[in-house]
C-alpha cells in the first residue's frame, strides 16, 4: 500500500481548466473520497493519478515515487470504472485474470488469485459467464474483483455505483467499505453523491470548478463547512440559504432578513464584528429548524412564522417545505402527531448555535 500525493496539479483541455492547482495528500490505507458536482474535475484528477490523462503541470507521487512520466501499467494501481469496463468477449475468469496474464504471472498463481477474489466477492458461480450474462451488481463485483486480484498499491474507483439502482447502491456501499477494512488498502474513490462520500470516506475532498474546496473527516466537513459551496453540497436535504444583513444592536448581533430577524449567539460575536452592517448569507440546515417545543437552542425566541408549502413524509422523518415572504426553506421535523396542511402557518425555531454565516462577496464562512 502507499500514500498518494498531488502537488499543484493543473489540467487544461484547450481553453478549459478542468483541474486548477490541486494539491492533496492521501495517507497510506486511507479511504479518500473526491466528491463534487459533474464537471468539477474529480474524475480528471483520478484519471491523472491512473496515468490515463497527462497533467498540464504539477507532480503526482505514489508512495515516494514521482509517477508523472510512468505509464499506467507501471504505477501499480488498479481502477474500477463507472461503466465497469469489463472485456465483453472474455468470461469472468479471464476478465479477472487478464491483468495477471499480461504481467506474465504463472497460470497456477493466476488461478489461485482468481479463486481468492471470487471467494471474497462471492462470485464463484459467475466465473464462466460473459459480462452480458451478468446483472449490474454482478458486473460491479467482477470489476472490483479485477482490481483486487492484482493486489495493487492503490485502488481507484470512478463513480462505481452510479449505474446501480438505489437498493443495490446501498448494499455495495457497505461491501466496498468492508473490503477496504479487509484489504487495508489505499482507496481513492470518486463520486458526485455526497451520501456515498459521507458514509464511506475516512477523509473527504470536496471539489468545485476544478479546485479543492475543503478536505477533512466527513462530520468535520458537515459541521464546519469552509464556504457556502461546501455547506450547500454536503447534507441532504441541502442547507437553507437566505440573503440577509448582519446587524449589530446594543452589543448583540442579529441576522436581518427581508422577512425575519433572529439573534446570533454571543459566542459568535468576536468573529462577527468585522462584518457588522454588511450583507451576508445566512445558512441553516433542515434538522436545525424545529417546532418550538422541540427546539434545543439556548437562544430560544428565535422563532420565525412560516407557511407550509409542501409536506414530504418519509416515515421516520418529515420534510416540510416552508415559505417566509420570498424566502423558501426546508425543515426536517419529527413525525408530527397532527396533520400538516398546505398553507397553514407554522412557528419554526432556529437552532442558532448550529447556523452558519457566509460572506456575501467571497462566500467564505464567517461562522
Amino acid at each position, binding site marked *: 500500500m502507499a500514500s498518494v500525493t498531488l502537488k499543484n496539479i493543473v489540467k487544461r483541455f484547450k481553453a478549459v481548466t478542468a483541474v486548477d492547482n490541486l494539491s492533496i495528500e492521501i495517507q497510506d490505507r486511507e479511504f479518500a473520497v473526491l466528491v463534487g458536482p459533474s464537471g468539477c474535475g474529480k474524475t480528471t484528477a483520478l484519471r491523472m493519478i*491512473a496515468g490515463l490523462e497527462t497533467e498540464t503541470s504539477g507532480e503526482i507521487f505514489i508512495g515516494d515515487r514521482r509517477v508523472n512520466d510512468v505509464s*499506467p501499467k507501471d504505477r501499480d494501481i488498479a481502477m474500477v*470504472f463507472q*461503466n465497469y469496463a469489463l472485456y465483453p468477449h472474455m468470461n469472468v475468469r479471464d476478465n479477472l485474470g*487478464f491483468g495477471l496474464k*499480461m504481467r506474465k504471472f504463472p497460470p497456477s498463481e493466476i488461478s489461485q488469485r482468481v479463486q481468492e477474489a471470487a471467494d471474497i466477492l462471492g462470485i464463484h458461480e459467475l466465473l464462466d459467464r460473459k459480462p452480458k450474462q451478468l446483472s449490474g451488481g454482478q458486473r460491479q463485483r467482477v470489476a472490483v474483483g479485477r482490481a483486487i486480484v492484482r493486489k495493487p498499491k492503490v485502488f481507484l474507483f470512478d463513480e462505481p455505483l452510479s449505474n446501480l439502482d438505489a437498493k443495490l447502491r446501498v448494499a455495495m456501499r457497505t461491501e466496498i467499505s468492508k473490503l477496504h477494512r479487509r484489504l487495508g488498502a489505499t482507496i481513492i474513490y470518486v463520486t458526485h453523491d455526497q451520501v456515498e462520500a459521507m458514509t464511506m470516506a475516512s477523509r473527504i475532498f470536496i471539489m468545485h470548478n476544478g479546485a479543492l474546496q475543503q478536505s477533512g473527516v466527513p462530520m468535520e466537513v458537515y459541521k464546519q463547512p469552509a464556504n457556502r459551496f461546501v455547506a450547500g453540497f454536503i447534507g441532504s436535504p441541502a442547507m437553507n440559504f437566505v440573503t440577509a444583513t448582519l446587524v449589530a444592536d446594543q452589543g448583540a448581533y442579529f441576522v436581518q432578513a427581508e422577512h425575519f430577524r433572529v439573534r446570533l449567539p454571543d459566542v459568535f460575536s468576536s468573529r462577527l464584528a468585522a462584518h457588522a452592517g454588511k450583507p451576508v448569507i445566512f445558512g441553516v440546515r433542515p434538522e436545525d429548524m424545529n417546532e418550538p417545543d422541540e427546539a434545543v437552542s439556548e437562544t430560544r425566541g428565535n422563532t420565525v412564522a412560516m407557511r407550509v408549502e409542501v409536506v414530504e413524509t418519509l416515515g421516520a422523518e418529515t420534510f416540510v417545505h416552508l415559505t417566509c415572504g420570498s424566502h423558501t426553506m426546508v425543515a426536517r421535523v419529527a413525525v408530527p402527531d397532527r396533520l400538516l396542511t398546505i398553507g397553514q402557518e407554522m412557528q419554526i425555531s432556529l437552532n442558532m448555535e448550529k447556523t452558519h454565516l457566509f460572506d456575501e462577496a467571497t462566500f467564505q464562512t464567517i461562522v
Partner: protein
Amino acid sequence: MRTAPDETTRMKTVANKISSFVDRRQALVYPAPAVIALFLIVVIPIGYNLYLAFTKWTIGLGDPRFIGIDNFIELFWDERVLNGLKVMIYFSGLSLTLELVLGLLIALYFHREFRGSEIVQAIYIFPFAATPVAVALIWRIMLNPEIGVLNYLLTSIGLPGSLWISSAATVIPALVMVDVWKWTPMITLIVLAGLKSLPNDPYEAARIDGANTLQIFWYITLPLIRPVLIAALMLRSLDNLKEFDIIYTITQGGPGIASETLYLYSYNVAFSFFKAGYGSALMVVVFLIVLVFNVVMNRMRLSAQDI
C-alpha cells in the same frame, strides 16, 4: 354537381372496407410492394436461370430443350470448369485476404487522430468511388509491359520489368493488385466505422492491466472487431467471387484461360459460345459457391457477435 347521397354512402363503405382490410392484414399489405419487386427482379430471373440449367439451348437456334442433369454431368468433364475454379480460388483467396489485412491496418492507422486525417481519408477512398470499368481501362494501360508506367517505374529504379497481364504466371497477382487498390478502401471504411463504435473503457482498463499496444490489439481490438471484419468480408466476397468488370476489361480471361474465373467462363459459354443452357448450369454452381461461403461466414459472424 353534387353526388347523390346513396352514392356517397357507397363510396364511404368501400373506403371503410379497404381501410379495415389494411388494418387487419398489415403484415401482408405493407411489405407487398417490396415483395412484388423482389419477385420480379430476383426470384423470376433465378428461377428462369435454374430452368435453363436443365435445358440445352443455343441462343438464336430454336427453343430450350429439357435435358435433365446432363449439363451438370458435363461440368465434371470440362477442364475449363476446374481451371475456372482454381483461378477463382486463387484470385479471391489472395485479393480478399490482402484487402482484409490492409483494410484493417489502414483503418487502425486512420483511427488515430492526426493532422489532416480527414483530407487523407477523402483522397484514400477515391479508388472505391471510381467506376470499375474506367479504373480497369487505366490499369490495362499501366500494366502494359511495353508502354505501361509500372514497368517504366520499375526499370527507372534499376529493377527488371514484369510481363504483368501478359504472362500466365503474373496475371492473377496483377489483377489482385488492381482489385486490392480499388476495394481495400471499402473494407477500411467499414472497419473504421466498427473501430469508432468500440467502447473506450476496455482499452483504458487494458492499459492499466498492463497490456502493451500489440497485446491490446490482439486481446481486445481484434476480438471486438471480429464481427465487423466478417461482415466486411461477406460484403466484399459477394462481389469478389463473381468479379467480372475488372477481369473482363483488363484480360478477358487471358492470356489463354489463365485469368478465366468460373464466373467469367459461364459468361463466355452463354454469350460467346451462345450455349445458354450450359452457361446457366455454370451460373448455378457459382451461385451455390457464393451462397455456401456466405452462410458459413454468417454463422461465424453470429458466433463472433455473441459477446
